């Protein structure tokens, strides 16, 4: 039973990191490796601000600033080369990931840090108020994103652009504007996830690299193009890690997760989304 709680907490952390990533992947068709470093960037900006104010305002400012950075990075680095294809974009984002990581390392140094926050006790086994917040944040951000993309005008425009950007343009949708929204929201969500990682663990230079791989895995396992797929994938990975260690030595925690990913993809080559989404097969 406790393991299920642990699994849900782990799943929420993965989900929180992955929603923003899957948004840029869906809307811009772009595997953004620098997404992991946006987590890191926000964690460190918040850390800096936390020296002058309490964690909540620090995190809010940090997240907004990270969102702005996201838009900026898009305009400076990605938009000019958007026509050059997925590979060029992907490796440009790797380059940018190095730049962010390097600059943060140069400014803050290489030691590990933590926020000034009170220590808390578990309210039920496996869950402190912080973890509860993470679960709520993960669910809310997913619901928000879903609502935003399906119900709001700008959200619908984003989806139209992601399906066919030329057609969207002819319909008079301002693709530049929709892109700005995408990058702001995706980067802010990355930032939120980065702050939470700092809250439950520590802030260090490797945190972005560690996260991006599991984020990539969850997003692909979910099936590209599906927010619910990412949600399902996060739960599958989270639960398989925590339930898996009951049976298999804990050092295989990650290996279990990856083994499950392999098995699922061999059975369902289009990811978990194909379980309910029979027709909407994205042509890769």
């Amino acid at each position, binding site marked *: 039973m406790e393991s299920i709680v642990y699994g849900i907490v782990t799943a929420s952390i993965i989900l929180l990191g992955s929603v923003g990533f899957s948004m840029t992947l869906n809307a811009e068709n772009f595997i953004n490796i620098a997404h992991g470093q946006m987590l890191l960037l926000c964690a460190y900006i918040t850390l800096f601000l936390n020296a002058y104010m309490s964690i909540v305002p620090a995190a809010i400012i940090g997240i907004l600033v990270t969102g702005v950075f996201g838009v900026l990075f898009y305009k400076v680095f990605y938009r000019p080369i958007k026509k050059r*294809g997925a590979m060029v974009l992907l490796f440009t984002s790797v380059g940018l990931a190095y730049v962010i990581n390097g600059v943060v390392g140069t400014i803050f140094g290489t030691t590990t840090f933590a926020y000034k926050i009170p220590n808390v006790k578990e309210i039920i086994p496996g869950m402190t108020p912080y973890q509860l917040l993470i679960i709520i944040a993960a669910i809310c951000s997913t619901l928000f994103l879903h609502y935003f993309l399906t119900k709001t005008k700008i959200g619908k425009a984003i989806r139209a652009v992601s399906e066919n950007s030329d057609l969207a343009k002819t319909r008079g949708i301002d693709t530049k504007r929709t892109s700005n929204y995408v990058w702001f929201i995706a980067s802010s969500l990355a930032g939120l996830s980065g702050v939470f990682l700092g809250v439950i663990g520590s802030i260090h230079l490797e945190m972005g690299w560690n996260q991006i791989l599991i984020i990539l895995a969850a997003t692909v396992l979910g099936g590209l193009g599906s927010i619910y797929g990412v949600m399902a994938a996060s739960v599958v990975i989270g639960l398989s890690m925590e339930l898996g260690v009951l049976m298999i030595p804990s050092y295989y925690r990650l290996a279990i997760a990856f083994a499950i990913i392999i098995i699922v993809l061999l059975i369902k080559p289009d990811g978990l989304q194909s379980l309910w989404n029979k027709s909407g097969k994205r042509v890769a």
Partner: protein
Amino acid sequence: MLTGTALFLSSILTLAAIYAVIALALNLEAGVDGLWDLGVVSFVAVGAYTYTMLTVSPASAGQSYIMGFGLPMWVGVLAAGIAGSIVAFLIGKPTLKLKNEYFLITTFAFAEVIRQILTNERWLSNGVAGVYNLAQPFKTYFTPSVYPYILLLLLVIIVFIVYVVVHRLTYSTFGRSLKALRENEPLALTAGIRPDRFHIRAFVIAGFFAGTAGAFYVWYSTVITPSLFTSDITFFVWMAIVIGGLANNKGAIVGSVIFVLAGESLRFLDLGSGFAVRMASMKIAILGLILIAILKWRPQGILPEKKVKFSNSSKNS
């Protein structure tokens, strides 16, 4: 100063040559064929461990690993290649039907699982402690001050051989078929090219060369530990072929050399030991900028692929 720099340069170039072998292998499957393989390091790891386990002497007290037959190096290198291709076959057989991103993450997952096994199964690989003080080829014939050049020469020859083989493959009917599949699969199908058979062949051949590269990597590092085989190698080699020019074999070599040189020559940016730690982070940022700059101004890579003639126009996005 000059001889010292030359010595350091030869050490860097040796490393670049090893990466070039992996890059050539990856280029065949990822560039010529269009496979998004994010697990190429698994072939390198399996090759390296196969080579080591076959060529070292049996495990001594406090160590534990399988085999330790003390076989000659060339047997080890060959076995490393074969092991690499066996792993490629085993991974490729079920996964090659997957599309781009899904294939990417599955191969990545396999590489992680393999590394976890090497890390945790002590009886197999001596675990995280690894195996130390491994032999280098022809070492006994030369003085230590000359040896780095000999190792470099040996690897340059190896890169040349691998290049010739991969180059011939690329421009053979086999290579053309791969490119046809990459550019327009439905059309290739009508021409009677069966994707599954061609993909697995490309994958297995890449596995072979990447496997041998594992052995060369052990020559260079003289140590083997699971931590050598993280996804860093995969990313690195991918970057090398992308900046060198995807599907161009010379590009794979040039990309490897440039990327290693760019990274290592930054060591000469020295502001004194008081700033060394912060500078190390700064250098990562500079390397990132170099990568971004190359991709911006040479998006097809430094040496773009030479278009082979297809009867119908290719659809490049």
